[in-house]
C-alpha cells in the first residue's frame, strides 16, 4: 500500500516537474496529424532547425548557473554577430573564411556589450531578468543608431548592395547568398533524404563539451556557488560581481557565434528584426525543454529545440485546417511562446513561495508533536 502510494506520488512529482514538456508533446501529438506533413519532411525540418538554433539556446545555460536567470540580453550577442556579418559581407569575404572572420570580429563587440550588460545587472541584483529584458530593448535602440545612421558616414560601408539608397544606413535585408549554408554544406551527409549538416553539429558538440568541461572548472564551481547564494560565496572570498560579469560575457560571446551560424543557415540578415525575436524564441525553446529559471541542462536545450520547433512547423497548417485561416496558427505559436515563458516564470515564483511556507509548516508540526509528547 505504502509503496504504491509513493510510486503514485513519484509519478505525480515527475509530471509536475515536467509539465511544460508534457504539454508540448500533447500539443504536437494533436497538431502533427492535423497538419498533414510527411514524417520525412518533418524530420528534415527538425534537423535543419536544430542545426540553426541549438547554439543560440545553449548560450543561455551559463547565466542560469550563475543565478542570473534567463538572459534576455542574449540579443546583445546576436547584435554583435549581425554587425560582424554586415562588415564581412561589405568586405566581400565569403564562404567559410567569411564565417570564421565574422566570428572573430564578433568577439570584441560581444565582450564589450557583455561587460556593459554584466555591470548593469550587478546594479540590479534580485531583478536581473526584467533588467536584462530592458537592456535588450535599450541596446536595440543603440544598434539601430549604429546600423541605420553611423554605418556609412562613420563606419565605412563600400557596397551599395547593402547600403540604403539614401547613401547611409544598412538595407532592411542583407543578402548572405555567397555564404549561405557554407558551414552546413561542408561535410554534410544525406541519410534517407534527410540532410545532416555535420560540421554545424560538430560546432554544437564542441560547445556542449565546453559546457560540460566548464562546469568542472574552478570558475564553473564558483558560478554555481554564486548562483545559489551570493552572500556565502562572497564570505568565502569569491569575487561575486566579477564572476557574474564573466557569466554574462561568455553568454554574449556564444550568442554572437550562434547568431552567425543561424544567419549563415538562413542566407540573409533581416537587419532590424532578426535579433529581436531570437531571444524570445531561444528562451521559450529552452523552457519547453523542461528548464526553469534556476536549472537548465544541455538535454533541456536539445529536447526544447525539437519540441518547440516541431510545434512551430506544424501549428500554422494545423491551425489552417481547424479554423480555415492560416493566421490563427501563426498567432497560436506566438501565443504559446509567450505563454510558456509566463508559465515558467509563475511556476518559479510560486515554487519559491511554496518552499518558504513548507519550511514554516514543518516547524510548526514538529513543535506540536513535541508539545503532545510533553503533555
Amino acid at each position, binding site marked *: 500500500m505504502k509503496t504504491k502510494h509513493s510510486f503514485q506520488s513519484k509519478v505525480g512529482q515527475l509530471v509536475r516537474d515536467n509539465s511544460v514538456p508534457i504539454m508540448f508533446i500533447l500539443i504536437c501529438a494533436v497538431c502533427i496529424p492535423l497538419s498533414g506533413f510527411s514524417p520525412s519532411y518533418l524530420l528534415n525540418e527538425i534537423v535543419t532547425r536544430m542545426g540553426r538554433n541549438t547554439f543560440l539556446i545553449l548560450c543561455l545555460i551559463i547565466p542560469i548557473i550563475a543565478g542570473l536567470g534567463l538572459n534576455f540580453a542574449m540579443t546583445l550577442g546576436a547584435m554583435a554577430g549581425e554587425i560582424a556579418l554586415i562588415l564581412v559581407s561589405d568586405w566581400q569575404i565569403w564562404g567559410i573564411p567569411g564565417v570564421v572572420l565574422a566570428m572573430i570580429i564578433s568577439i570584441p563587440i560581444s565582450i564589450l556589450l557583455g561587460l556593459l550588460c554584466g555591470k548593469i545587472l550587478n546594479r540590479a541584483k534580485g531583478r536581473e531578468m526584467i533588467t536584462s529584458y530592458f537592456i535588450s530593448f535599450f541596446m536595440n535602440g543603440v544598434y539601430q543608431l549604429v546600423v541605420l545612421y553611423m554605418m556609412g558616414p562613420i563606419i565605412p560601408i563600400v557596397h551599395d548592395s547593402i547600403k540604403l539608397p539614401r547613401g547611409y544606413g544598412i538595407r532592411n535585408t542583407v543578402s548572405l547568398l555567397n555564404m549561405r549554408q557554407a558551414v552546413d554544406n561542408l561535410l554534410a551527409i544525406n541519410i534517407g533524404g534527410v540532410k545532416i549538416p555535420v560540421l554545424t553539429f560538430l560546432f554544437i558538440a564542441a560547445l556542449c563539451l565546453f559546457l560540460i*568541461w566548464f562546469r*568542472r*572548472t*574552478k*570558475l564553473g*564551481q*564558483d558560478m*554555481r*556557488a554564486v548562483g*545559489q*547564494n551570493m*552572500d*556565502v*560565496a562572497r*564570505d*568565502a*572570498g*569569491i569575487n561575486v560581481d566579477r564572476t557574474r560579469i564573466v557569466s554574462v560575457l561568455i553568454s554574449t560571446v556564444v550568442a554572437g557565434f550562434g547568431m552567425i551560424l543561424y544567419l549563415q543557415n538562413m542566407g540573409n540578415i533581416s537587419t532590424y528584426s532578426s535579433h529581436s525575436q531570437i531571444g524570445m524564441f531561444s528562451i521559450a525553446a529552452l523552457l519547453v525543454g523542461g528548464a526553469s529559471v534556476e536549472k537548465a541542462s544541455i538535454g533541456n536545450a536539445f529536447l526544447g529545440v525539437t519540441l518547440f520547433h516541431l510545434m512551430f512547423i506544424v501549428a500554422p497548417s494545423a491551425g489552417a485546417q481547424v479554423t480555415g485561416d492560416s493566421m490563427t496558427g501563426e498567432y497560436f505559436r506566438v501565443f504559446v511562446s509567450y505563454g510558456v515563458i509566463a508559465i515558467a516564470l509563475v511556476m518559479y515564483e510560486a515554487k519559491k513561495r511554496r518552499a518558504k511556507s513548507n519550511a*514554516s509548516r514543518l*516547524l*510548526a508540526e514538529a*513543535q*506540536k508533536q*513535541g*508539545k503532545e509528547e*510533553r503533555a
Partner: protein
Amino acid sequence: MEKNSAPLLEMRNIKKDFFGNQVLTDINLTLREGEVLGLVGENGAGKSTLMKILFGMDVIRETGGYEGDILLNGEKVKFSTPFDALEAGIGMVHQEFSLIPGFTATENILLNREPTKTNVISQIFGSRLSTLDRKGMDRRAQDAIEKMGVKIDPHMVIGDMPVGHKQFTEIARELSKEQLKLLILDEPTAVLTEQEAEALLNSIRSMASRGISVIFITHRLHEILAVCDKVVIMRDGYVVKESPAKEIDVPEITHWMVGREVDAVAAPAEPRSHEGAKNILSVRNLWVDMPGETVRNVNLDVKEGEILGIGGLAGQGKLGIPNGIMGLYEAGGTVEFGGKSLPLNTPRACLDASLAFVSEDRRGVGLLLDESLEWNVAFSAMQIHNKFLKNIGGIIKWRDERAIHKVTEQYIEELMIKCTSSRQKARELSGGNQQKICLAKAFALQPKFLFVSEPTRGIDVGAKALVLEALRKFNRENGVTIVVISSELEELRQTCDRIAIVSGGEIAGILPATRAAEEFGMLMVSKVK
C-alpha cells in the same frame, strides 16, 4: 610554563566604543595552544564585539576601529578583513550558517579553496579555468571530518542535512584550513540535539588534543564546565571574572553574569502588587513559529493594570510571545483577553480587541520609513478605529489632515521627539526618535493592553530613560496594562512590577521585580535548549 613561549593569543587592554557608547573596556585575555576557553555573559555583555574585533570584521573598522593590542604568538597583529584573520590561522563558526544549500558537504568544506588541476587553457586564461581535483577534494574533506571526530556524509547535499550536520560541516570547513590554530565557536550548540551537542563537545576535546585552541561561546553553562579549561565571564563590556573551569560552578557563573555592584541604586521604582487584580490576559500552551525565537509552550497570566516584564536570553523565545499573540508569526494555543477568546494569526482581531504592539523590528515592521511622521503616528488608529477621518456624505472616509497633524504635534511635544517637522520622513530620524514614533503610534490607538518589545534596543541613554518613563506614565495615568519584553534585566527591574523569565521557549518562572538579580539569572539558564 609561562616563560617557555608566548601564548598563542593575547589580547591587551582592548577598548571599543560605538559612537561614544563604550561597549568594551580594558579587556585582557590570554589563550595557550590547545586550550579551550569558555566565554560567557548576558546578551550585550560584549562577547560578540570582542570576537568581531579578533576576527577583523568590517563592522569594527567602519565604526572607527578599536584600541589595545592583539598578539598572536607574541607578535602584534591587526586584521583589516576576516580574510587576514583566516590567513593568520583564526577560524570562526558563526551563529548563522554560511553554506551553499545545493552543494555537498565536501564542496562546502572546500568552497573557494578547492584543489585544482591545471590544464592548457588555464595556463593561458588563468587559474580559474583549472579543473577541480575531485579526488583531492574528497581526501581533504575526509581529513577535516576525521579531525573533527564526528561522522558526517561528505557527499550529502547540505539542503538535505539535519541542522546538526550543517553545523558540523561548518566546523569541518574551518578544520580543513591547514593554518588553523584558533577556532571561535559562537553558540554552536544552540541548534543541536542533546546527542549532537555531546558529539560536538567530544570533537572540541579532540581538537584541543591536536593543539588547536578553541574559544567557545555558549549559554549552556554545564557545557562550559564540561569542556573548557578556563572560563571568562563578561558583563557590561568588562571581564568580571576569569577562573579555571575546575574552580567554578554554575551558580557562581550566573552570579558573575548578572550580578551588579550598583544593585541598590538601580532598584525598581515603586514596585506594586496586583495580587487581587483579575487576569486581563491568559495564555495557555502557546507555541509560535518565529525563526530564532521559537516559543514552545508558554502559560502566562497578566494582571490588569500591572507592568509585566518578560526577560530571558536571546533565542529563548521571549520575542516570539508578543509576535505570536499579535498574529505576526504563526502560532497555536489559546489566548483569552478580558475573558473573551482571542483568535490567533489575525493581527486585525487583536487590534480590534484593543491590544497594541510596539515591535522590536522598528525599521522592518514598526515604521513606514518613506512616509511622514504624521502617517506613522496616525495610520493604525485610522485603519482600526476610524480616527482622524472625516465623513463625506456618510460614505466616503476622507483623511483628516488637520486632526492627524494635531495628534502628531501633540506626541512630538509629549515624547520630546527631535524632528524638523511632523512631515519629515521617518527614515531621517535617529533610532531613539524612531522608537518614540513607534510608541506614539501605539499610544494613538488608545489600547487597553500594550506589548512593547525591546523598547530600548539600539538607542542612547537619554532616549532610553525617556522611553521607559513614557511607558510608566502611560501605565499609571491611563490604566493600561503593559508587557515589556527586553533583553536587559536591569531595565525590566526598574520599570516592571513582576518579571517573567523565558527559557527554552517556556516560562521558567515569574518573580517580583524586587528580587535579587541572581535569582533571575538562574531562571534564565534553567531550561536553555
